[in-house]
C-alpha cells in the first residue's frame, strides 16, 4: 500500500465505515431487526409449505376421502374434508403454489413496469413526466378489485388475465412511489456527472438511478405482493378464480367458507396461510423500511 507523504493517516483508513446502503446489505442489515426476522420466518415457512407441500400431502389433491365436510374424526384425517370430500390438509398443501406464483408473477410484472415508468417520469422532468403520471392517474382511478373483476368477466378467469389485471393496476401505484423516490435522486449531482460524461439515458436510468431507489422499491414490492395476494384471494372469494378444480387457497376459502362455523379448517387453513404470508411480507417490508430510514438517519443529512 503506497501512500503519499501528505496523507499519512489516510491509508489506515476510515475508522468507522458508516453503515452501507447497498441493497443486498440493506436486506442483510434489516434482518437484524426482530420484525424482519419474524417476517422472513413466516414468509419462508409459507413459501416452503407452498412449494414443498405436495411432497408432504398425505393424499393426492383429488382423492375423495369421505363425504363433504366430514369432521377430522369421522374421516380419519387431520383437518377433515372439504366441500367435495377432499382431504383438507392435502388440498391445503397442494394449494399454495398457484396463488403464490400468480401473486408473485403479477407483482413482479407490475413492479417492474411501475419502476420503469416511475424512473422515466422522474428523469424526464418535462411534459413526458406529466403525461405518464396523468395516465397512471387514469388507471389508478379504477380500484384493483374492480378492474380485475371486469377483466375476469370479460375474458374468463384465466391465470393470465388475473396476472395482467393485477400487474396493470399495480404498476401505476408503484410508478408513483418510484417517481417520488427517484425525484430527489435525479436532482443529485452524480446524475449530472454522468450526463456530462454523455452516458446514455437507459444506462442512467438503470445503472445510476435504479440502484438508488432499490430500498423503497423493495418495501413497495413486498407491500404490493401483500395486496396482490389479497386481491387474488378476494377474487376467489367472489367466485372468480382460474381453474376451479385445482387445489388453490383462494378457491378453498371461497368454497369452504360456508362451513366456517361447523368445519372451519377448509377455509381457516388458507385464511391463516394468507394472513401469515401477508403479515410476513408486511413485516419484511416494514423492517426494510425501518432499516433504510435508520441508515438514512445514521448517514446524516446529505
Amino acid at each position, binding site marked *: 500500500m503506497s501512500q503519499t507523504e501528505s496523507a499519512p493517516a489516510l491509508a489506515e483508513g476510515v475508522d468507522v465505515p458508516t453503515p452501507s446502503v447497498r441493497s443486498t446489505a440493506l436486506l442483510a442489515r434489516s434482518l437484524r431487526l426482530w420484525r424482519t426476522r419474524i417476517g422472513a420466518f413466516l414468509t419462508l415457512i409459507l413459501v416452503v409449505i407452498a412449494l414443498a407441500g405436495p411432497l408432504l400431502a398425505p393424499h393426492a389433491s383429488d382423492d375423495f376421502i369421505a363425504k363433504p365436510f366430514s369432521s377430522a374424526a369421522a374421516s380419519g384425517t387431520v383437518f377433515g374434508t372439504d366441500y367435495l370430500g377432499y382431504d383438507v390438509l392435502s388440498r391445503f398443501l397442494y394449494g399454495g403454489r398457484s396463488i403464490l406464483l400468480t401473486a408473485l408473477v403479477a407483482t413482479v410484472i407490475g413492479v417492474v413496469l411501475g419502476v420503469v415508468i416511475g424512473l422515466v417520469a422522474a428523469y424526464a422532468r418535462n411534459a413526458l413526466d406529466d403525461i405518464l403520471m396523468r395516465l397512471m392517474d387514469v388507471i389508478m382511478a379504477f380500484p384493483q378489485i374492480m378492474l380485475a373483476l371486469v377483466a375476469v368477466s370479460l375474458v374468463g378467469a384465466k391465470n393470465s388475465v388475473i396476472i395482467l389485471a393485477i400487474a396493470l393496476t399495480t404498476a401505476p401505484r408503484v410508478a408513483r412511489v418510484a417517481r417520488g423516490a427517484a425525484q430527489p435522486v435525479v436532482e443529485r449531482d452524480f446524475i449530472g456527472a454522468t450526463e*456530462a460524461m454523455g452516458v446514455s439515458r437507459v444506462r442512467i436510468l438503470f445503472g445510476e438511478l435504479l440502484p438508488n431507489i432499490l430500498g423503497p422499491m423493495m418495501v413497495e414490492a413486498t407491500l404490493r405482493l401483500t395486496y396482490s395476494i389479497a386481491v387474488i384471494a378476494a377474487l376467489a372469494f367472489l367466485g372468480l378464480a382460474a381453474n376451479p378444480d385445482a387445489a388453490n387457497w383462494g378457491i378453498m376459502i371461497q368454497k369452504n367458507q360456508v362451513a366456517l362455523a361447523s368445519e372451519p379448517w377448509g377455509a381457516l387453513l388458507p385464511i391463516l396461510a394468507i394472513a401469515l404470508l401477508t403479515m410476513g411480507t408486511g413485516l419484511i417490508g416494514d423492517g426494510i423500511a425501518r432499516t433504510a430510514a435508520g441508515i438514512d438517519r445514521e448517514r446524516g443529512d446529505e
Partner: protein
Amino acid sequence: MTTDQLPAGETETTGGGAAVTVRDLRISTTSGVEVVHDISFEIAPGEVLGVVGESGSGKTTVGLSLLGHARRGLKIAGGTILLGDRDIRAMSDADLRRLRGSLVSYVPQDPASSLNPALRIGIQLREVLEAHGSTDDKENAARIAEMMREVALPDDPAYLKRYPHQLSGGQQQRVGLAMAFANRPRLIVLDEPTTGLDVTTQSTVLTTVRELAQIHDVAALYVTHDLAVVAAVATRVAVMYAGRIVELGPADKLFESSGHPYTRRLVGAIPRLTGGRSLVGIPGHAPSPGKRPAGCAFGPRCRLHVPECDEKVPDMVPLGPDHSSRCIRAHEVVDFKQDDYGDPVALPEPQAEKPVLTIENVVGYYGSTEVLHSINLTLEQGEILAVVGESGSGKTTTARAISGLHHSWTGSIRLGEMELAKSARARSTDIRRQIQYIFQNPYGSLNPRKTIGESVGQPLSVFKVASGKKADAMVGEMLEQVSLSAAYARRYPDQCSGGERQRVAIARALIAKPSILICDEITSALDVSVQAAIVELLGELQRELGLSMVFVTHNLPLVRSIAQKVAVLADGSIVEYGETAKILANPQQEYTRHLISDTPSLEVATGEVASGAGVADGERPE
C-alpha cells in the same frame, strides 16, 4: 423575566459571577459510548465564548447540554452545569421547560428547518413569551416589535404574518435570534447560526449577535467550525477536538500564539485574503466516539507527536492568564511562529495568448428569466480562473453552461477553436472528455451504490479509453495521485469522509485526462482543514499537469490562494474581471469592496488588515 438577572458589568470574569459554569461534563450515547469528555468552562455575562472544531467534535452536543437537553440517543452522563448557581442537572422536567427559552435560549444552525414551516413567524415569536408567563397581548406585541427592531427586521404586522419560507435565510436566522433574545435570557447558545448564509448576511448576523450580547449583558456560547467567524465575534475561544476541549483562551492569543498543534494547523489551513501563502491541510481525520485512543486524540495526525503522547490524555496546561492547552508540548508549540505553516508560493504564470476556453456574450436563462447577462471570459492554458459572487449571482449557471449541463443559453462558448454545442449529449466524446466538472457536494456527486472504483472507472469506459485490467490499474494510479490508496477502489462513498469523497470526485474528473476542470464550490461543504488539503492537491495537480481550471467559489480568501485571475459576478453580470491580487488589493467596484469587507477573516481579527466598512454598515436590504 428580569428578576434573577445579574448586574451588567465585567466581561473578564472567572469567579462566581459567571453566567454559566460547566465542570467535567460528560455526555454519552444511551448505550454508553462517551461522545464528549471532561468539558469545563465558564462564560461571564456579556461574554461570547466561541467553540470551534471539526465536524463531529461535539460542539452541538455541548451547546445543547447547557439547556439541559441531549439529542435522542444521547444522555448527559456526568459533571455539573451551573446556570448562575442553579444546577441544571438537578432540575425537574417542568423546571427545565421553564428555564428553556427564558433563562437560556438556543439559536439553531439551520433556521430554515428550525422554524416551523406551518406557523407564521409572529406566532412563533409570541409563543416564547406566552410559554413563559407573559399573557398580556398588548405587552407581547410591543415586545415582539422591539425584538424585531433589535435584529433589524421590519416589525409591522404584515411582516409578522409571513411564513418562514417567505423569508430569506438571513432573515430567518434573525427571527431565530429575536426569539432567543425575547425573554432576555442570561445565556444564549448559538449553533453555527451563519453557516449557509452568504457573507453579507453572515456579517449582519454576527454584528447583531455581538451587539445584543453586549447591550443586554448576555453570556453567549457561539458554536462554529469557522475560525474566521470566531475571530469576528468571540472574546474567548474553546477549540474542541474529538470530544474534548483541547485549547481554551482569549481569541487573539489563540490565533497568534496558540498552544496546541491542532489549533495551529487549523489556523494554517485558513486561506488569507492577503494570500501569498499556500494552504496546508491536516491529513487524516478525527477519531469518532468509541474509537478514540487512550492518549492524545490528535496524536496520529500531529507533526510534534512523541511516544509519551499516547500514554494518557494530556491535562490542560496553563499557558497564560485564562489560556490553557491540552498538549504535553504546549510550551514548545506556543513558541512556533504561525508562518512556519504554509510556504509562501507564487502561482504559476499562465501561458498567455493561448485561450483554451472562450466565453462570448453568453446569456443564460431559466425558463424565460434571464439569469446571465452577456458573460465574456477567457481561460488561458494552465490558468486558474476564479468566479466569485454572492449566492444567486449566476456562478453555477455559468459553470454548468460550460460543461453542457445547462442548455438554455445563447452566445458562444469555444474550446480552443471549437464551438461547443449546448447539451453535453450533443457534444463529441472528445469534447466531453476534455471538459470535466466537479460538483460542490461530494456527498451528492458520487453514486452511493457504486464503489469508488466503479465511479472513477466510469469515464474510462464511457470515453472508451480502457477497460478490464488496464482500467483497474489506471483507477488505482489515479487514486494514488489524489492521495488515496488503490485499496479505496473497493469502498463505497459512505465509507469515505467528505474530503476523501471530494478527492474521488477529482480523480474521476482527472482520469479522463481533461484539458479543463470546472470546479463548482468544491470545498464549501468541507471543514477548513480538509478544504486546505483539497486546495493543496489541486494546486499541485495544476502545476504538474498544466491544467486549466474554472474555480467557482464564494470564498474570497480562498481565491487569493489559488487563482491567477478572478471574475466577480453580481446578478448575472461580470462586474470585475482581472488578476486576483490586483482586484483583491484594489477593488474597483462597490460590490467587490462589500464582498471583501463582509468576508470574515483572521486578518481583520488579528489586526493584520484593518476592519473594512462592511462589518459596521453591513446592513443590506434583503
